């Protein structure tokens, strides 16, 4: 009986290894049900706290781990007193427009809907950006939909000199952009994939449908 149980548990562990933490409670409970508790056994050691697992896909991050307070986020030092004085992100993000990527805030919509009003000038709270409403279409050679680059949401956060001319030459056809360059942190990748929304969100940029190609 015992050998069978060991084999069974080993098989379970092999199959569910990465998800094992979430099921830890269940399996221990099941084990307790099947094996009679022997009197005089030392009490089970206190279990190490583990992060919960996303029920949809165990490889994805669980919602409860989004936006943790600084002492629990893994890069702040919990041994540092100042860490505990810093504002936890969730406290600030309450009313913001949510998204499914990055730090789970849709910053462009949050700004457009007036949930935040970050200063355009360090000292003058009334300074307003010069928003340029100019869309640029980039025809993509591959099978992905073409890219529509809107100046408007960009110029609400940035000024022209941030991108022109060091990153992009302001002239049609003068900028060679590739996904490889973006992934390595060049061109759009200077911000996208670091601070602005990540490059996993293909269709946010590749948003224009291609025209059907006819054979005639």
């Amino acid at each position, binding site marked *: 009986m*015992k050998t069978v*149980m*060991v084999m069974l*548990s080993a098989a379970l562990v092999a199959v569910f*290894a990465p998800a*094992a*933490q979430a099921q*830890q409670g269940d*399996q*221990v409970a099941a*084990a307790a049900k099947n*094996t009679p508790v022997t009197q005089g056994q030392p009490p089970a*050691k206190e*279990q*190490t*706290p*583990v*992060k919960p697992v996303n029920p949809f896909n165990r490889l994805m*991050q669980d919602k409860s*781990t989004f*936006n*943790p307070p*600084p002492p*629990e*986020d*893994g*890069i*702040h*030092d919990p041994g*540092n007193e*100042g*860490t505990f004085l*810093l504002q936890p*992100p969730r406290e*600030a993000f309450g009313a913001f427009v949510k998204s499914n990527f*990055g*730090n789970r*805030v849709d910053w462009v919509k949050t700004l457009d809907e007036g949930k935040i009003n*970050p*200063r*355009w000038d*360090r*000292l003058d709270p009334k300074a307003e*950006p010069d928003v340029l409403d100019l869309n640029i279409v980039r025809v993509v050679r591959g099978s992905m939909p073409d890219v529509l680059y809107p100046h408007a949401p960009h110029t609400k*956060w*940035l*000024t022209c*000199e*941030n991108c022109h001319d060091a990153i992009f030459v302001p002239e049609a056809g003068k900028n060679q952009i590739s996904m*490889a360059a973006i*992934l*390595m*942190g*060049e061109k759009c*990748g*200077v911000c996208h*994939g*670091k*601070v602005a929304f*990540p490059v996993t969100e293909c269709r946010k940029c590749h948003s224009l449908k291609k025209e059907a190609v006819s054979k005639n």
Partner: protein
Amino acid sequence: MASFLILVMITLGVPMIGKAYAEYADVVINNFSSAEGMRPVVFPHWFHRVRFRCKVCHADLGFKFEAGGNQMRMVNIIEGEYCGACHNGEIAWAPENCDLCHSAKPNLATQVHGSTSQTLVTPVTGQPMEKQERAPKAKVLE
């Protein structure tokens, strides 16, 4: 039996503990800190962009769009350059509050947390990012 199971679970659970869930775009700056015996700095982009647009720091104050690319010393900050433009006790806390900025785990490498280059590009040494000195910047040929 139960204790065997618990042991197995704990062993499997260990690699997951200690994984960083910090905010996307949190920057760890460790140009000089560790060498000077200080904790590295954590710069939370989210906190700052709630209050200021990108342009304020990246155009007016001259911060380059590159983690570790801004070689600021405490002297610069105290003189009102870089972070010191606001962190002067008037707009934000003054530089004498060392541990509010120098709050990262000791010896953490310069990085943008959650960035493509951190999550997709395989580190050259095969070591986890936090154990590396500084990942060499990859160059893309035009």
